[in-house]
């Protein structure tokens, strides 16, 4: 055997805590959280009324549906899929609560049915995507129309209103008494955020979700049941959509077929701004929460500054485009620099 000298072996170990902290600090999530802080500081400084408890209170109530939906949506997008039917399911759940309440059911029972239907709808999505093997974009564009259609079909464009005050108060009461900033319903979100955060970041299931999004085939070869992972995430999305439908109904005291219409795109936009890759495999819950809050705070601040709804839309779209293009540009420039360095003398011939 011709012997080249035994090559130097660097047997790898985990990087130090310091190095890992550094990676986190310069990571995507940290950037979004930093952006949130900047938005808050600037808005508090220049927009009158922004820093008040009431602003925070309304801000939370307004973004809560997106916050809640963004949690399971993050996991779905991490597995490389997408669910565009969430807002329609919110509408359907809202209508069910209304129709059943009108028919004399109690609110908890009606809510249970709404959640059940959310589960079934999610399972339908999951079944079509995993077992039948259809692209989730197409499937959920279909169920978007289907769920919304059933909602509108059940209630027409009419509305059910006049829900009992004690249930409405569950949603709108403040945690620390009148005038304070935190609505008690936020507790539900905090619990769900912890559940989904832990699920994604600290459990075998979460590892499977990332793996499925990065490479479904290799995951299958590693003994991961990719279909099951995706299926249950669609079910979870349906469940949370059901919950949001109940929230929506009680907050606005109004069950209507068109509730939350168009919200799906806001949810997807927030998740993407929050640093989740549409290709799957990348993204984290803290970044997504910060992403939702950035968009929500920006909207709130602009409204308070009497900026019209239109400019707010432009800001949202711009933020989305910039947030996906910016990292591309940075890595693109880095790669180009590296290539130019490596090529050195062949610089003149370098082409792309």
């Amino acid at each position, binding site marked *: 055997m011709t012997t080249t000298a035994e090559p130097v072996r660097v047997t790898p170990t985990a990087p130090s805590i310091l190095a890992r902290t550094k990676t986190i600090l310069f990571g995507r999530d940290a950037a979004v959280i930093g952006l949130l802080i900047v938005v808050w500081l600037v808005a508090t400084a220049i927009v009158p009324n922004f820093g008040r408890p009431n602003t925070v209170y309304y801000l939370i109530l307004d973004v809560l549906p997106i916050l809640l939906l963004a949690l399971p949506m993050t996991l779905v997008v991490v597995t490389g899929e997408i669910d565009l039917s969430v807002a329609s399911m919110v509408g359907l759940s809202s209508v069910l609560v209304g129709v059943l309440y009108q028919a004399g059911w109690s609110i908890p029972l009606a809510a249970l049915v709404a959640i059940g239907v959310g589960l079934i709808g999610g399972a339908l999505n999951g079944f079509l995507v995993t077992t039948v093997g259809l692209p989730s974009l197409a499937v959920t564009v279909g169920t978007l129309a289907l769920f919304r259609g059933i909602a509108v079909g059940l209630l027409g464009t009419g509305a059910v*209103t006049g829900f009992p005050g004690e249930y409405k108060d569950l949603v709108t009461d403040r945690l620390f008494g009148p005038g304070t900033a935190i609505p008690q319903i936020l507790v539900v979100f905090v619990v769900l955020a912890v559940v989904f955060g832990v699920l994604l970041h600290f459990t075998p299931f979460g590892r499977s979700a990332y793996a499925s999004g990065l490479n479904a085939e290799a995951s299958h070869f590693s003994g991961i049941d990719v279909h099951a992972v995706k299926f249950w995430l669609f079910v979870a999305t349906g469940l949370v959509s059901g919950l949001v439908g109940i929230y929506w109904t009680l907050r*606005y005291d109004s069950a209507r077929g068109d509730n939350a219409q168009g919200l799906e795109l806001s949810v997807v936009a927030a998740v993407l701004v929050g640093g989740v890759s549409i290709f799957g495999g990348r993204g984290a819950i803290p970044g997504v929460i910060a992403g939702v809050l950035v968009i929500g705070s920006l909207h709130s601040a602009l409204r308070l500054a009497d900026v019209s*709804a239109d400019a707010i839309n432009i800001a949202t779209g711009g933020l989305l485009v910039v947030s996906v293009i910016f990292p591309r540009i940075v890595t693109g420039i880095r790669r180009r620099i590296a290539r130019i360095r490596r090529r050195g003398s062949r610089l003149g011939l370098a082409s792309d």
Partner: protein
Amino acid sequence: LTVAATGCGTDDPAGDGGYDIAFLPKNLGNPYFEASDAAAQKAIEDFGGTFKEVGPAEATADGQVTYINTLTQQSVGAIVLSANDTSALCDALDEAREAGIKVVTFDSDVDPECRDVYVSASSPELIAKKQIDLIAEQVGGKGEIAILSATANATNQNAWIEEMEAYLASDYPDMELVDVVYGDDDDQTSYDKTEALLSSHPDLAGIVSPTTVGIAAAARYLSTSDFKGKVALTGLGTPNDMREYVTDGTVTAFALWNPEDLGILASYTAKALLDEDITGAEGDTFTAKGLSSDVTEFTVGPDGVITLGDPFVFDADNIGDFDF
């Protein structure tokens, strides 16, 4: 009525002579509200107040809630709104009123407990009667008619439709209301709905559209179709929108109050509330200036409703006299 004493309202807006009044239309880009809000702006600036118009891009209740919340945080003096939903806005309005903000609804009301006063263009009975009389005259008192409404839960629309049904049953037994469709106060939807209406009811004699967006869209549809002159159309419309169709014979007559007057009256109502001239109780009186009619004295009726007056009928003879 409790006077504002909570932490949010720092000072009584009426106290320093400034009337900080915000108009919240059903949605931005609706010419009917454009007209009334523009007139309101002039009226408010005339009496030394500040005017602001905010609103959602689409006519949804939750969009309005967000804006009511924002106005509450900004501690405006009064909110003047046309509601997209009777009850969905109530919680938000309650909080606004708790913060000392006066709430005036106009054009479309919310539940009476959630606002101080409602400025109604006309009473539902009068409006319903006027339109049914107009269509009956145009179709000869018999045949199938249909209604092209705005959104299905617009309070005013539903009240009128209810009145129309009752009035039809009692006074015009030969006329049958065969369908009510909803154009959502969206031009394109109304247009398409008109078309659908005509294709699904071939024997239709007339359409009543008690909404300015709806009647204009329906008229435009009819004017270019074979139904022109065969299917009658009336309802509530603005002269500028309808002039063309009255001239070309698509429409003989339609009704409306003056939206500018409505905006002006709503502004003065807000002023009267801020001045504490009225509280919304029945029998309170106040004055409004600059209306197209000579009336200046208004009295709060039952349920805190203030009525502008009878709807006005526009036809080929008089339409040239108006510009709004």
